[in-house]
């Protein structure tokens, strides 16, 4: 019985109670690991994975050579966390958006980039979604950040996508336009098709999201076939895209079934 007891003890010790020490990692591997975890968390709408990804990015901010990217990705994780928490814990969602804005400001202070400005604009826009009466004050900030992004890189597909999403979500009375948004989604997709990012550390997200938003725009126009085609293309780009798979396509099916 001794080997059995010993092994059981070991199993219990190592399997249940002992947290193995993480090895020292450089910033690049932290960011890469975080990106993978963030993608998985996004697909599964898994808060815990997203929080772990955020923690990895936050650790990477300790490396000054990668601080710009690390701050950007912390903000990206915060942005996703805010989306995941918006329905259940609005206060926490707002905290994550504040954090995203703060990290993006730090990233921009170190090195201004169209990517960071576009995400900053999006974070302001999301905050307006949470607290509409702040639109009067945050709207110009979102607009200014987007203007900076466009000035730095007008053909960046994520910049074009961000502007199109803003146009789509902004009420008409405040200058939004569904028509302009539709044109923007199409242009973003054209630009994504031409984009060739080889460095895995750099931001490369957005193509699946652009298809998803195009599908939503079609859905609002009652163009269900076009919407379905767009959602299916989003799944071609990212077969695990939970938002499309579990939310948007079922919503489209329900809309079709209710008639």
């Amino acid at each position, binding site marked *: 019985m001794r*080997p059995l007891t010993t*092994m059981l003890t070991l199993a219990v010790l190592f399997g249940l109670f002992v947290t193995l020490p*993480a*090895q020292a990692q450089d910033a690049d591997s932290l960011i890469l690991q975080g990106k993978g975890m963030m993608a998985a968390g996004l697909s599964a709408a898994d808060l815990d994975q997203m929080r772990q990804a955020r923690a990895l990015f*936050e650790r990477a901010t*300790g*490396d000054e050579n990668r601080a710009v990217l690390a701050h950007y990705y912390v903000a990206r994780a915060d942005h996703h966390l805010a989306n995941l928490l918006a329905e259940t814990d609005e206060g926490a969602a707002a905290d994550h958006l504040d954090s995203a804005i703060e990290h993006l400001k730090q990233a921009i202070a170190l090195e201004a980039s169209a990517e960071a400005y576009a995400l900053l604009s999006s974070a302001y826009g999301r905050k307006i979604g949470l607290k509409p009466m*702040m639109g009067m004050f945050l709207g110009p900030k979102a*607009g200014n950040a987007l203007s900076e992004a466009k*000035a730095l890189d007008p053909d960046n597909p994520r910049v074009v996508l961000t502007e199109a999403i803003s146009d789509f979500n902004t009420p008409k009375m405040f200058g939004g336009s569904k028509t302009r948004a539709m044109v923007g989604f199409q242009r973003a997709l054209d630009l994504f098709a031409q984009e060739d990012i080889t460095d895995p550390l750099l931001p490369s997200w957005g193509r699946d999201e652009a298809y998803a938003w195009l599908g939503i725009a079609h859905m609002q126009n009652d163009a269900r076939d076009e919407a379905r085609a767009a959602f299916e293309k989003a799944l071609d780009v990212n077969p695990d895209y939970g938002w499309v798979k579990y939310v948007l396509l079922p919503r489209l099916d329900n809309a079709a079934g209710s008639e």
Partner: protein
Amino acid sequence: MPACFAHAQTACLVLLRTVFCFVLLPGLAGFARAQTPDRAVVRGRVVDAAGDGMPFVNVSLEGTTDGAATDRNGAFAFATRQQGRRRVRATMIGYEPALRAVELSPGDTVVVRLVLKETLLRLEEAVVTAQAYTTGEAETVTLSPLEVVTTPGAAADIFRAIQTFPGVAVIDEGAGLFVRGGDVTETVTLLDQATVVHPYKYESPTGGVFGTIPPFLVSGTYFSSGGFSARYGGALSAVLAMESQNLPPRTSFTANAGLAAASLSADVPVASGKLGLRFSGNRSFTGLLFRVNGQREAFTRVPQGLDGNLSLVFQYSPTGRLKLFNFVSDDQLGVHVAEPSFDGVYQGKTTNSLHNLQWTEVFDKWLVQTSLSINRYAAQRRLGNLDLRPGDRTLKLRTDVERGLGTRARLALGGEVERIANTFRGTIPLQDDVLDPEAAAYVLDEEYTATRAGAYAEVEWQPSRRIVTRAGLRTDYHAPARQAVVDPRLSFQVAWSKNTRAWLAWGLYHQFPMPYQYNPESGNPALRAQQARHYIAGLHHERDLLTLRAEVYYKPYRRLTLRAAEDNLRNTGRGRARGVDLFAKYGAFLRTRFNGWLAYSFLQSRRLQVRHRGRAITHEQGPSPFDVTHNLSAVGKVRVVGFLSAGLGLRYATGRPITPVVDAVAVEGQDYYLPVEGPVGSERLPAFARLDAQASYFYPFGDGSSATFYLALSNVLNRANVIDYDYTADYAERTERATHFRRSVYFGVTVTLNP
């Protein structure tokens, strides 16, 4: 041992060996690697205040990428090559960072326990200056331009909308801000750091009918009814600070046509994100309004005016911005006035302009804002022997700088120089209130100037997650008074929970007399600064869509300017105000189907005042002229269906105190009388009450364009609120003077085009 058991045991052993070899061994190998002599291991647990483990907290060695996230139980472990004394840091959104110093040696394992405490207050969000109503990102109670124009009874006016908040008394139908027993001159109005010396249109002793600055030129406002910070000087009671619009995000043209006004405006981003232009022009013509609603006969010239704004915003870098704001307004009116000594027509005409250049830049960690402004004002007032052309010119230079000091403190410094010149030309009655054209009058041709220089320093410090304090010191030097005053101001805020916080504030406030009050004939060259102290305690609770606030205050006054028996001014006035302000707000504009607020103020205010007894005057303590005991405002707005919304606003206020005239003495050789007054503030006007309704329909069309149709019904109950008493020439009879603002309807349309 039965054979079957032996087989089972063997199977178990095989399974466990497999688990050991393929699952545990790699882990052990990793652990062994971690235990190599060149590395130290940091392990431990992160818990919350209740001792429960916190998952997915980021734990790292400060200044490195070495670290780990906690597991579901809050446990963590990581290996590091760092040595010596280091700090382990645990961070999580919504919690204060936890730090623990450790001594690291190769081969050692260090165990730490970190406790994360929820962030209850944030420095940038704390409102430590007692009760303030703001537009901005952080505060809970806001007043956006849209809120202003949709507030029933506010007539799309910032000042009138602010009147619906607690601490501001309703005196009449005008826009005057009478804060906590003080008169309108005790509230300072700022725009982009510049002083708006004449903030009211169609000025009157109780302020004016409207605010000068239209709401759509303003992106945010900060209104404090007391206990405000050392940034603001020259005000005994309150501060209203407005910020003008920034860069226009897109091109848009707006046209508005209503029963009493028409306007055009354009927002043009000349260079996207860099240079923007805003233009607006407004023509008011109340003739049609008064014809539709009656009362046209009350005016010999209906109130009418022109105003225009031209603003340029140049965002020359991500941190640098130049903003040029220009505003000019012109208004005039003629109204029949029955004074005891003269029954005639009052004619008024005013031109007011404000030009302000503001520069914003960030140098290292300092945010610097500088403003250079000029405010010009010229008026003409004619009634009987009064033919006065007052004017003033104010030049101001102001700079504010601020920076963070770590994550727990913020430092703000600033200074300003302001030069005011008052001019008076024309004639004024020799004897107050005796306006007969034949009565004796002074001939005036005078100019008075005054320069005031001020500076302040202020530190906000958050010693713990629950507490934020602010300590400020302000000093002002006034040339005509040859006096320097020092105003210390302190405030302290504590949060019991995320939803509930309380504050205490104390401060000293000085306000110098206007330059013309230093004239040796009717004023006094020896006048000193007037003084008030603010003692404030407040409580704020917020949960979901409900906001509740309560504030109590005590405000003693000293050295108030008062007319003396020798017929000039002295600093002999004194008084006090104390009261309670309550505020409840539900919902959020544009977000909830219903939103609204309820504001109630209780006030007791007494001051030493002048009592006229023919040519003689005495001084008596009595209720201050603006001691409105109970003041209630209720505002409710509802989205009826689609883009159709409607609202009701109710205001009730105790009538303000008046000093009755109980007798009169004839002036020898003249055809008029001088009043003999009863005890000061011994009577009150009847209570003020008013119900207003407003509805609007928003119709979007094209690509981002829209039309908004609006309809307002003012004074729905057609109540004839009494705003003063009129006397016959011999003061033998008294009649009530009722408001001109009886039930009236107003409608119009605003069209916005976004090409």
